């Protein structure tokens, strides 16, 4: 029982971590909280559902489709909702927040119009395949989710720290203006960041569909706020923090449901946001840099 809950928690946590990575990438480079990330994630889930369940195509096609669509959405988001706000004199730090809130509500309600309101079934061909490892039951889906999440996280870290583009991105994250002066094409880097972050959201959407077998147009909001909670908890812009925060939230939610009240499951994340912001605003893994935010 305990071991199964542990596995459930880790599976959930790995999905959360992938969502949180999307936030943390964008925040790290742009200092922007992308409130539309949750809704992009939700679109990823729907695209995956259309391909895998409605068209009975293989799962890899669902992932590719989700990546393509959400990547495109990320591009549109950057091009039309973020880029026009950049470099404007006297622009408020709140402007991108408000603009992405706008995109989030736009996407959520478009999904409502496109896909309807209720839950939609997300079927995977191997939903019922499971193994008995001693007394513990493990579903194949869980193993696949965990594997994909780990590959994504490892791949992202490798890319960030080893590749030339990743280094340019990190330089941009250090200081946008300096990187620009040093000849880094910051617009390109920013666009790439938002596109990559969004397609990671898309992948996470498909993973959630696989894990829960149903999706709806509201899931973007709750997942978005959880992703936000995780990066606030783990530290804004910190990759390690996103992974650790995702795992912690996944585990604590699973155990609260298993051993406590299921009703407050979704509240854990928000309580965590509030407590962490008040006690340790830089997050568990973030560096303290006081008075940077106005």
């Amino acid at each position, binding site marked *: 029982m305990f071991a199964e809950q542990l596995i459930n928690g880790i599976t959930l946590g790995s999905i959360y971590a992938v969502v949180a990575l999307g936030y943390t990438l964008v925040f790290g480079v742009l200092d922007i*909280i992308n409130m539309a990330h949750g809704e992009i994630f939700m679109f990823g889930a729907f695209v995956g559902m259309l391909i895998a369940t409605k068209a009975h195509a293989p799962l890899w096609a669902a992932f590719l489709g989700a990546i393509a669509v959400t990547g495109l959405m990320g591009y549109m988001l950057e091009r*039309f*909702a973020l880029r*026009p*706000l950049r470099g404007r004199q006297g*622009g*408020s*730090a*709140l*402007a*991108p*927040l*408000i*603009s992405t*809130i*706008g*995109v*989030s*509500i*736009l*996407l*959520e*309600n*478009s999904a409502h*119009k496109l896909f309807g309101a209720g839950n939609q079934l997300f079927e995977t061909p191997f939903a019922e395949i499971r193994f008995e490892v001693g007394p513990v039951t493990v579903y194949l889906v869980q193993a696949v989710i965990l594997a994909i999440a780990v590959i994504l996280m490892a791949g992202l870290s490798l890319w960030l720290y080893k590749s030339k583009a990743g280094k340019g991105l990190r330089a941009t994250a250090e200081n946008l203006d300096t990187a620009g002066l040093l000849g880094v094409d910051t617009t390109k880097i920013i666009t790439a960041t938002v596109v990559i972050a969004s397609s990671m959201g898309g992948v996470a959407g498909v993973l959630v569909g696989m894990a829960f077998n149903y999706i709806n147009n509201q899931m973007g*909001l709750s997942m978005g*706020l959880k992703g*936000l*909670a995780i990066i*606030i908890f783990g530290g804004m812009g910190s990759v390690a923090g996103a992974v650790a925060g995702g795992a912690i939230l996944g585990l604590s939610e699973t155990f609260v449901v298993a051993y406590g*009240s299921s*009703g*407050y499951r*979704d*509240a854990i*994340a*928000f*309580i965590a*946001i*509030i407590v962490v*912001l*008040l006690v340790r*605003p830089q997050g568990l893994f973030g560096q303290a840099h006081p008075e940077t*935010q*106005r």
Partner: protein
Amino acid sequence: MLVNVLLAVSIYVTLSTGQLSLGNAGFMSIGAYASAILTTAHGMPIPAGVLLGSVLAGAFGVLVGIPALRLKGVYLAIATLGFGEVVRAVFINWESLTGGAVGIAEIPQMGREILAALRESGFTPETVGLRSNQFISLSVFLILLAAAVLSTLFFLRLSSSRAGRAYAAIRMDEAAAEAAGIDATYYKVLAFSQGALLSGFAGALFAHSTSYISPADFTYHRAVEILVFAVFGGSEHLFGPVFGAMFLTAVPEALRFVSDYRYIVYGIILVLMMIFRPQGVIDQALLDRFARGGSPGGS
């Protein structure tokens, strides 16, 4: 609906000290639930319920406002958004008190109560040429109108007084305001709890005009809706959010087509405003052009 005007004023008040709160939907729900529970389960008269509901929301405003002082900008916005969601989770789960996800029905309705009271004293709406339901809607409308006008006047006057100047100074430059002898802590918490109290008031009136509330009335959508009023109308002057609320409430009611796509339109408005007119439709320059001779602060 005029409740929206109250909500728009509430986000403006907190914003007038530079604090963006997305938790006003949460405060609204506290006022609504408190008043609904007090009047249904405890038989209190509506005015007492509304009063207590508003005060309770205001008290929560103080409780949230004090720790919120440590947060700035984006972080404050997110923490207050989180607060709103926590409140909603509590209302969904505290079923014995709140009816859970189903909500509370048969809340005494202001108009009906007034009619009942008048009937006892021998008055019938027919004497003024109205049917009962017309009379009910009319009296609700008048009460809400009075509430909206009064609170707008309240904060209009406040903004051209010593406290209002302190708010504006803090919003423009908090350190300079402190250096000018303004207790920024006091005024920020004050503004935050005034916003909370007004949201609670709006919530309580909302409960007594619809006579049914559920957690679904106080979601992220509500928080964003309140934000849209301020962003669209403009937050430099109180008239901005008030205009935003009236315009954005009236248009969907007039045009069915818009009403179906209301939130999609809201989303587009937020993005477009940030790009083309971040200060909102109504800014100081526009007001000055309209009101030569009636400059703010003229007493």
